[in-house]
């Protein structure tokens, strides 16, 4: 018998091809973010990408694995880009490095590399930074010029804390979260809590991520199941909260266009390695993320929650993969037949 395997007719897009397309699909989102928040966004992405490729290469070398073929699959690059895109504008290089090392080295390579990581690497890095460096991670400047004044010192991390505070603003989610129970939503919005154009900026960024996500679905590089289930459950649950108490909970639309909702739905939650595999499992997985995001945003201590929601659902994936087994054709039930065992 020949070593060639069936089918001889192989034309599927390769893993590297898929990764590169996902990277390309982040471009609209990154471009619009840069437009509103300045070159600090691009510096994040570039620094994170460099860190990611360097960290991956180093670990591959230590593990005595071929370096080039693995780097060529672009998965580390994608992790870097996604983590970079999640960080506040012009984050210092060392902060990005810590996050990327947590993502690529700890969350991915220590588990065995591509395909073996139970958690979404970019979100592991992000969550680690969020709990370890809360001051840096909540420094979202208000919309600003393309080339902000202190871009370079910020990136180099040489800016004093007081100077940093002067630069920072609040994201809409942050501001709304900390409005206080005594303030009604109507009063809050009437007091113009955010600099002009902040909400518009976030909405347009969300739409740009949506555009990238639609391209990925149209090109069949990701399936629609996770984004649709996640956004659907978010809308449904936030509508229930909102219907119950319009004065303290954000509207479904507010949840949809602020924070990392659309970026998370199309680019983070759809990471195939750490998501459920079957179609039904993907629906459950996406819906679970949506529910957790709204619960944490509305009832928990963090203004946004995509990273935690994704990581918590990553934990559930082995279970989801068991409960969402489809019924094989010709079998009475979907359950694996445990009675069968090789003699």
């Amino acid at each position, binding site marked *: *018998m*020949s070593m*060639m*395997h*069936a*089918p*001889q*007719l*192989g*034309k*599927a*897009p*390769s*893993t*590297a*091809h*898929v990764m590169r397309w996902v990277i390309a699909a982040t471009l609209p989102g990154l471009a619009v973010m840069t437009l509103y928040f300045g070159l600090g966004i691009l510096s994040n992405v570039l620094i994170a990408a460099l860190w990611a490729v360097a960290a991956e290469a180093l670990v591959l070398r230590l593990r005595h694995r071929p370096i080039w*073929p693995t780097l060529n*699959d672009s*998965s580390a690059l994608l992790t870097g880009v996604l983590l970079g895109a999640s960080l506040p504008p012009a984050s210092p290089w060392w902060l990005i490095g810590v996050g990327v090392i947590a993502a690529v080295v700890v969350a991915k390579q220590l588990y065995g*590399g*591509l*395909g*073996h990581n139970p958690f979404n690497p970019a979100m592991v890095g992000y969550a680690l930074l969020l709990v370890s460096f809360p001051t840096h991670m909540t420094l979202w400047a208000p919309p600003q010029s393309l080339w902000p004044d202190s871009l370079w010192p910020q990136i180099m991390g040489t800016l004093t804390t007081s100077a940093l505070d002067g630069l920072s603003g609040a994201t809409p989610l942050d501001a709304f979260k900390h409005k206080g129970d005594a303030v009604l939503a109507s009063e809050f919005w009437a007091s113009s809590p955010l600099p002009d154009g902040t909400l518009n900026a976030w909405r347009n960024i969300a739409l740009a991520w949506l555009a990238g996500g639609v391209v990925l679905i149209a090109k069949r590089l990701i*399936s629609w199941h996770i984004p649709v289930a996640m956004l659907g459950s978010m809308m449904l649950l936030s509508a229930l909260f909102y219907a119950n108490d319009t004065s303290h909970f954000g509207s479904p639309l507010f949840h949809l266009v602020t924070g990392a909702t659309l970026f998370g739905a199309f680019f983070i939650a759809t990471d*195939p*390695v*750490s*998501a459920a*595999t*079957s*179609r039904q499992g*993907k629906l459950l997985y996406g819906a679970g993320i949506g529910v957790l995001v709204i619960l944490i945003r509305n009832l928990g201590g963090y203004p946004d929650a995509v990273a935690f929601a994704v990581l918590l659902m990553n934990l559930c994936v082995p279970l989801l*993969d068991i409960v969402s*087994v*489809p*019924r*094989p*054709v*010709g*079998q009475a039930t979907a359950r*694996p*037949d*445990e009675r*069968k*065992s*090789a*003699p």
Partner: protein
Amino acid sequence: MPAYEFPGGIYPPERKERSNQAPLRTAPLPKVVMLPLSQHTGKAALPCVNVGDAVKTGTLVARRDGMVSANVHASISGTVIEITDSVIIIQGDGEDRWATLPPLDWRTAERDTLLQRLDDSGLIGLGGAGFPTYIKAQVNEHHAIDTLVVNAAECEPYITADDLTLRHYAADVLEGAQLLARLCGATHIIVGVEDNKPEAIQALQALLTVIANSEPLASVTLKIIETRYPSGGERQLIKKLLNREVPSGGLPADIGVLCHNPGTLLAALQAVRDGLPLVARVVTLTGDAITQPGNYWVRVGTSVDALLAQVGVDDEQLHQVVVGGPMMGTPLTSLEAPVTKTTNCLIAATKEELPPAPAEAPCIRCGACESVCPAQLLPQQLHWYARAENDAALEAHHLFDCIECGACSYVCPSAIPLVQDYRSSKQRIRHKRIETAKAEHAKHRFEFRQARLVREEAEKKARRQARLAQQQSASSDATGTQTAPVADLRSLRIAQTAAKAAVRKAEKVLARAAAQDPQQRHDDLETQLATAQENLKAAEARLADARAASEQKEAP
């Protein structure tokens, strides 16, 4: 009639236009043929000619061995020049003198005569599995069959043999379907054909009205289905046409269906009507390295090398020759291999059209494999278990429900040879089963020996009894005393009926196992069948003995 859906499936490039443009031609007569003794499911046939024997086209050269096996006939006239363990080689005389069987009329001939003819003609399924047709035609002895499905979906890329067969022989194929429907008791025939064969569909449609007016034995329906691989898989097609699901580990017969390939039906009709044994078949010769692609009538046993040379092949461009389709076929390691009864297609491919698989990358759990699996399995879980050789988990996740269609491998972005893994896992598990079965087998051989001894004893006793009775009747009519005790006739008759039932059951088990597991030999089941037959003979001998004794007692 609406078509139903089967899950999954893919849309690979069809590349059928390369071979379906030219009309059906006849390949030149080969000078030498190499006839494998095992072209079918089951035991290899046993040679029944000697080196140096002169044979005609159609002369029986190897007889089927055991129930699940098939005859092999000379496919050219000439001289037997070599017989090995696995092949018979015949040097042709270039005259092509035929030895045919007497023609039969399938409408009027006895059922047993027709079955015998299918058996004699060495007929097997030409679609690929190569299951002996005469056994399949008898399946209604155990299962009620209502529908005969003509599987003309031909979903694999490149292959157009069924398409061309239908264009040229639509009437014969449908008559062959009537013949097999008569044998298996089906009252309905459904022809399932993919919508990418307009000319074959036209030929069939033109016939349907004629047939409907002629009061056929079985009504005929044509169902045109969407072109989607693997709609030609038996289970997928049945689901699509009839919305019936073949149970896991079961056969279409379990749900009242038999599937036949158009080529098989044509061959069946030719065997019965024209008395032609199965010595030639339609083969698609295609691929970019072939200068005259198309479909050819090819004599069984023609070497691939010679065949390709005859239709013109560009040796510079030729990268590999694949037998069968590009999805499920296997590349040939040697071009000296012969065309067999189950060779439906030869693809002489260039490197560009069927490139070598790229290097395997890690699985990224994307789930693409799962969404295309027509059996609704979890290809990716199976992949992990297969690599870990976790056989218990493989079986629990229904590895043996995998039809090896290759859809999962086709869509895998990491180029993991999934089907390859499943095949070798199946082989490993089968091997394990065989090991455990060996002990069982030894037991069954012992039982067979015991049964044979008992039968011989019973027959001996019967002979002795008969002799004794003769002597008695000759010498002492007056005494009239019966020395031998007359056994209870009734209980012996019951024993004989039980033994008959046991034989039938053993036959059924064997036929079913062979159909399910075409790659395997079923020696153990054959032994069990033989044991049951021995027991039956013994019971019959005892019964005959007792009857003779009681008659003798009553006679005076």
